[in-house]
């Protein structure tokens, strides 16, 4: 009884971590774009591993929460092996990494010889998290351990990182695919059964699975939040609140701002719900506005409102007067979406990132602009605005002048080309 109480305190993710490969949703991986059975490959790798074999490590790469770590633990459990794990939370420096892995990878300790109990698997979890740009010293350490290891090594990463290239060269890489919605739902149902919860709606499970896109860990977390948060699983609104902040949130937010919002309060609610940084959000609205509104008179209204919002935001920044913020929200949210009246919105609209035009001088003009900066004593930016167009015009009038200018500024052939255009 006591033990059972303890169990319920665990988060469901830990509580239902698979003990055996039979319990889990089978992860699928890709090698060179060909699907393979990840579990088979891993077992083959671990069983065939010898001290002098060429392949000493495997790299699993895939988005978070799809069972990369779990599959290693489950296999180890089934094969009666011990997992020695390092991850971003407990190994931060090169030294601690080395001391931990060195003893594990080289000598089996005395106890192992006597009991002949367990073989080991070395698991380096979240490698892209620990050894970022700041800690390059760790990569040689990992490579060294890989060379000397007496045990199979499995490395887990979330995404491709350039700083990890030396490791990529030495390992076999499996790209673990996200789980299918059906597989996620199956597992969620299993958990609910074990938890003795029967008054849930299948629709909720589907929407949880859809929202998390194959991220099983997040799905289980959402499920626990929903079921233990008073079990008010009636409406989908709860799930909306559980929504994680990703860039796709912006996409759907922009879309619903233009297609679903009917009143000012709708717009307000929509913006309140999202955690997106609003200084960025209104630029998104600006970028995508003409795709949803295509009549010129409605465009005028919409842009009038968003430009006033921009003005207000500028004043907020300048005078630090944050009391103006509500106007800003209303104008770029409701003000823009309600300007749309008769405009026709096509079914599929590609939401695009806001285009940022920064004060950066094009690479072709840079050296010329720098020379002009010295002679004219104006900034290189101004040079591209005023002087370069003038010099172009001047040098197009006569060949003599062209020569004089290039002698004067000591131009090379590339810079002459810029003036020719």
């Amino acid at each position: 009884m006591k033990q059972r109480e303890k169990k319920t305190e665990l988060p469901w993710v830990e509580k239902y971590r698979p003990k055996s490969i039979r319990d889990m949703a089978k992860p699928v991986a890709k090698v060179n774009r060909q699907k393979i059975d990840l579990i088979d490959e891993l077992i083959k790798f671990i069983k065939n591993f010898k001290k002098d074999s060429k392949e000493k490590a495997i790299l699993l790469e895939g988005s978070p929460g799809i069972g990369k770590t779990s599959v290693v633990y489950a296999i180890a459990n089934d094969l009666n092996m011990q997992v020695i794990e390092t991850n971003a939370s407990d190994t931060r420096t090169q030294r601690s990494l080395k001391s931990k892995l060195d003893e594990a990878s080289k000598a089996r300790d005395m106890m192992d010889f006597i009991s002949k109990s367990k073989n080991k698997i070395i698991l380096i979890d979240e490698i892209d998290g620990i050894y970022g740009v700041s800690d390059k010293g760790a990569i040689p350490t990992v490579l060294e351990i890989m060379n000397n290891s007496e045990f199979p090594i499995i490395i887990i990463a979330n995404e491709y990182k350039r700083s990890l290239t030396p490791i990529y060269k030495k390992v076999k890489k499996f790209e673990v695919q996200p789980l299918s919605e059906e597989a996620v739902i199956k597992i969620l149902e299993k958990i609910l059964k074990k938890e003795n919860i029967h008054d849930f709606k299948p629709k909720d499970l589907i929407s949880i699975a859809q929202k998390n896109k194959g991220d099983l860990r997040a799905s289980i977390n959402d499920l626990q939040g929903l079921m233990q948060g008073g079990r008010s699983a009636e409406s989908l609104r709860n799930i909306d609140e559980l929504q994680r902040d990703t860039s796709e949130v912006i996409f759907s937010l922009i879309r619903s701002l233009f297609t679903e919002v009917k009143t000012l309060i709708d717009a307000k609610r929509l913006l309140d719900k999202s955690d997106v940084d609003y200084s960025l959000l209104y630029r998104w609205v600006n970028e995508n506005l003409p795709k949803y509104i295509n009549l010129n008179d409605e465009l005028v209204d919409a842009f009038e409102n968003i430009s006033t919002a921009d003005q207000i935001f500028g004043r907020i920044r300048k005078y630090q007067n944050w009391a103006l913020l509500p106007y800003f929200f209303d104008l770029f949210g409701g003000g823009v979406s309600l300007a749309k009246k008769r405009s026709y919105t096509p079914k599929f609209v590609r939401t695009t990132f806001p285009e940022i035009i920064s004060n950066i001088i094009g690479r072709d003009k840079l050296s010329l602009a720098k020379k002009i900066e010295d002679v004219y004593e104006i900034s290189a930016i101004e040079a591209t605005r005023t002087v370069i167009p003038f010099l172009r015009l001047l040098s197009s009038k006569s060949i003599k002048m062209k020569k004089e200018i290039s002698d004067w500024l000591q131009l090379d052939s590339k810079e002459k080309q810029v003036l020719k255009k």
Partner: protein
Amino acid sequence: MTINSPVWSVKYKPKTLSEICGREQIKFQLKEYISKKNFPHLLLTGYYGVGKTTIAKCFAKEFLGGSYESNLKTLFADVPISKEERKQAGIRSTFSTGMIGSRAGKRRYIHPFLDIKVKPFIQIRVLGEAPFKILVVKNFEALGQFQQGFRRLMETYGSNCRMILITSKISTIIDPIISRCQILFIPPVEFKDYSDFIKGVSKKEDININEPALKILYKYSEGQLNKAINILQLSAMLSTNINSEVLYEVINSTKDKKIKELLKLILKSDFSAVRAQLRAIRREFNYSAQEVYKKLLDEIFILPLSKSIKIQYINYIAEADFKSIDGLDPDIQLSNLVSKLCFLFEKI
């Protein structure tokens, strides 16, 4: 190098205060500063291209005398800071030593412009005989909210280094800066001084310019001598006798073809095409929103429109320009203007 410059605007650039065209009152005041060997922080303001920087430089050089090379520095606040400089600023950022409160142990970042470009200059002591160093910062308004960091520097290093801040938009300068500076408004050149100067240039270059053409040039260049001399040089390549016809031809040829294309698209009232063209222009020439407004306004004389529509056109541009003073994103403000113009021409 400047002596053999084929470009007249560089060739005839004033090198001392007394060579500067007109503006006697300002020159008098600055010469007083030089004779007394002291002056407060200065904030020069005035229209674009009116000669603020030239005046500041001539003044600083004369003030510092022989030791000006090591004690004078000019900075452009609008030039982006390179990656390496940014990295250095990252290294120099410090951890706050406070033990209590929300800032305890936090990393303090200083704007790379201040840290990389301003501080190394103003922290070093004066070299030579000069009473203090002089730092000229052009386009000061581009610093935006980081102007706040500047005011501390003006106080702490004020005795070692005086600053001459230059801006064309004084409304964007924060009050604490304004209260620490003496403001000098540089007016455009008056016609009398202007015509004397242009006549002097044309005499040296062996060309003739008649009186009506001189007036047109003054009107078109809005008192900007640089612009006027540029056009004078272009006209001189067509003929040595410059009259109003030659001048009009040259002025037309200097206009941006891309702006004309933009106007054509606006007349067709195709908003998304207009916005694409607008962005292409801004990317190529690094125009600020204000410059695009000006270019659009310049085109009004050639537009085949009725008087009332023209007034409406000007009205829209003025309104947009006013809004951009506070606005943060020039793209939004420009889109606003362009959408209005598209709608205006759709109706007629």
